């Protein structure tokens, strides 16, 4: 860097940006002195966990802070012009035309009562004086450009008639319609299935290269940032921890927080169980879960043949191991586990848990069976009664079965809560006063208090930030070896699955497409689908470099 080239004007230059939210008691600052720049055609990733201020920062760039938000100081220069204090009227000329937005959740980001065509055409009607037939032609070519088949049909359709991936393509079409200089992509794929996720990110990459647009990629996923960004800005609690070229940050992170993030992200960590201590002893008749020819059909309301959610599924799980069920939405994984825990009755097939045929159980038999099998839900907010405190939540299962006095129950609950790492002072709190990680610890404690043999974890760590996720996964691992538990781990996240499972079943459209030990499936996938899933795991660049 001895020769200083003629300075390029950055597309966007943020300097000492501080943002505060007003609430009942005064102002609270959410973003502290943030500075970064984005050069033309560059991809910059804003990485952080929840509460890091990344979304607030992104919103402020386009002037769409929540009503109670305010830029306290600092500047946001778009091509050298400070727009931080512009009025709405001034910003309206910039939004959509020079800076555009790809939102997080394609499901709710399109107006449900307007056609795709009119929502895409709207941006031309706002910013240009094109005639309506010209607009229509542009709409159709844009829809084709973002990879939607039959653009004329799509333009006439309503959002609910399109899949999530298709809707995100429409939103991308809106974002690139006027060839802006900067696209802000706010977690553009976190609501999508992994394989769709990869295709959408590929599309954004492609369009960026074609149009020379700069991209600000807001993401919680360091793997995505590593794959897609030229430079990374790491945020925590509204402050920049570190920023620099992607390769440099991944190779030699300077801040302790970045180091922690890198070691916690499952997509970066080396698969620990490949050298599993437990030798795969074949044909020892100690399979705690035996699923044989499982099928579940649902009657369609509209008539027609019944919907086969699960079709001829068979697998076995050895006692004391972790079996993962992997699949995207609609793969039948949820239906499968609901049958296993006895909340749903299969149409055909046999499920045997520890020698008991679950599908034949009713009433009291089913209730007694519940002691053996426990379910931990994805969303710890919804699975804990908001009116109970932690201690009540964990003692309740014991009250359902005889043999425990009140003091027994409390003693047992306290012991298990201490074991899952919940501080003593949290026992009297209600769920809303706990953090996401703590709530999931309570849910695990409730599942374990009955001394079950099988614990079914339904996307149990998917809603958590990576650093919290890593702690919960560690906890699950310790509990398994201590208590000899068997886990059935349902997930869409292959990186996590590879990290904690012994055996895997891969489901697609209700059918088993791949199965076996983790090393077999990950190293020699038998189906194209499994291969696609593995390729879609973000963070490949970094793994390849390592």
């Amino acid at each position: 860097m001895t020769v200083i080239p003629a300075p390029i004007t950055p597309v966007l230059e943020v300097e000492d940006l501080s943002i505060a939210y007003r609430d009942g008691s005064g102002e609270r600052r959410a973003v502290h002195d943030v500075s970064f720049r984005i050069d033309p055609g560059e991809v910059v990733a804003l990485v952080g966990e929840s509460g890091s201020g990344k979304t607030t920062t992104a919103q402020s760039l386009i002037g769409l802070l929540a009503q109670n938000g305010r830029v306290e100081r600092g500047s946001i220069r778009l091509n050298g012009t400070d727009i931080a204090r512009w009025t709405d009227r001034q910003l309206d000329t910039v939004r959509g035309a020079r800076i555009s937005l790809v939102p997080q959740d394609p499901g709710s980001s399109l107006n449900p009562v307007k056609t795709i065509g009119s929502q895409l055409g709207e941006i031309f009607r706002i910013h240009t004086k094109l005639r309506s037939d010209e607009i229509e032609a542009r709409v159709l070519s844009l829809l084709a450009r973002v990879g939607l088949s039959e653009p004329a049909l799509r333009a006439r359709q309503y959002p609910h008639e399109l899949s999530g991936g298709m809707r995100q393509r429409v939103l991308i079409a809106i974002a690139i319609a006027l060839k802006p200089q900067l696209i802000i992509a706010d977690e553009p794929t976190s609501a999508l299935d992994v394989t769709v996720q990869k295709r959408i990110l590929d599309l954004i990459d492609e369009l960026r290269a074609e149009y020379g647009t700069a991209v600000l990629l807001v993401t919680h996923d360091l793997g995505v940032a590593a794959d897609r960004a030229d430079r990374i800005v790491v945020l925590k609690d509204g402050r920049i921890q570190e920023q620099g070229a992607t390769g440099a940050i991944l190779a030699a992170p300077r801040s302790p927080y970045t180091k922690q993030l890198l070691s916690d992200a499952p997509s970066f960590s080396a698969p620990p169980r490949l050298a599993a201590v437990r030798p795969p002893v074949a044909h020892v008749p100690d399979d705690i879960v035996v699923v044989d020819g499982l099928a579940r059909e649902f009657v369609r309301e509209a008539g027609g043949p019944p919907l086969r959610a699960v079709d001829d599924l068979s697998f076995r799980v050895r006692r004391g191991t972790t079996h993962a069920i992997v699949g995207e939405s609609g793969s039948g994984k949820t239906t499968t586990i609901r049958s296993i825990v006895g909340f749903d009755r299969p149409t055909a097939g046999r499920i045997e848990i520890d020698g008991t045929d679950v599908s034949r159980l009713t009433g009291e038999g089913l209730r007694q069976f519940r002691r053996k099998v426990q379910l931990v839900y994805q969303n710890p907010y919804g699975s804990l009664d908001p009116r109970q405190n932690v201690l009540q939540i964990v003692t309740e299962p014991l009250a359902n079965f005889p043999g425990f006095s009140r003091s027994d129950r409390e003693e047992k609950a306290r012991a298990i809560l201490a074991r899952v790492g919940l501080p003593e002072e949290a026992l009297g709190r209600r769920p809303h006063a706990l953090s996401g990680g703590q709530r999931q610890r309570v849910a695990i404690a409730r599942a374990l208090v009955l001394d079950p043999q099988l614990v079914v974890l339904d996307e149990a760590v998917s809603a958590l930030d990576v650093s919290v996720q890593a702690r919960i996964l560690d906890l699950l691992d310790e509990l398994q070896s201590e208590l000899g538990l068997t886990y059935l781990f349902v997930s869409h996240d292959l990186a996590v699955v590879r990290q904690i499972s012994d055996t895997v079943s891969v489901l697609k459209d209700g059918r088993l497409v791949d199965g076996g030990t983790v090393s077999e499936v990950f190293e020699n996938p038998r189906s194209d689908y499994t291969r696609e899933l593995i390729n879609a795991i973000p963070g490949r660049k970094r793994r390849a470099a390592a």
Partner: protein
Amino acid sequence: MSGYLLNRVAQALFVLWAAFTISFVLLQAMPGDAILIKFQNPDLGLTAQQVAEIRASYAVDSSVLVQYARTIGKFVAGDFGYSVQAGVPVASLLAAHLPATLKLAALGFLLAAVLATAIAFLSSLAPFAWLRGALQSVPSLFISIPTFWLGIMLIQLFSFRLKLVPVINPGPWQELILPVATLAVPISAPLAQVLVRNIDEVLTRPFVAVARAKGATRLWVLWRHVAKNALLPTLTIAGVLFGELIAGAVVTETVFGLNGIGGLTERAVGSQDTAVLQAIVVLSALAFVIINLTVDLLYPVLDPRLRTKTGAVA
């Protein structure tokens, strides 16, 4: 779709039949007896035997079940029986009083709709928090005012104090000004509340942020994105509003001495003229059922999500 339609119509008919039955049980099984009230009056000088004959001619002495069957048959044929008090068929009584009420209700509803929409949309555009707060508290004030008292207050203020609206011999439209205003207040309140809530809710949805990110102004977003999404759910309270409209009409007509269905209802209750009251109850239930049926059938037309799906859902 046709199966759904049949099902809905059958449901509507059931509700109608049950409403008739309830009103029959309530009104025909009552201890008070309109015929006795009217004809036992000593001024008429009728003997006990003459009263009994009159009673027989009204068939009040046959068993309840026979009366029930007979009444339901007549209702289906459009014959609502005889008003004992007025001495004319209920049907002609209703026909004579309906136009006045329809005029009042239509104008009242129109004013209420305008008022509610204005409050809801102005409050979401209001540039200052205090103005927004003031506008949004109007519906909760409106909902707390007794309609009859409001009517009296309006008369007191506009007719007696300000002498703007004459009380004696007003013109046909002049006499409607205050009643329509009175009726509009209790109707507009729930409508405005629902609208304000819907607009606030729709404004938080991500597609509004996307529209703003396209460069659309606040007014553009409110008009082209929020309005339809916020107005659609108000259709579901159409039935409730109809109930308010009936109650409002009864009270308003009583206060202003208008000769409509409301006034008729009030007099029918006072003189225990059950045939009249039952006809009004059944007709209101019919109107309610038709309104809700229309809303149910209209909804899929207005909301594309409820139409049968076409094309690929990949």
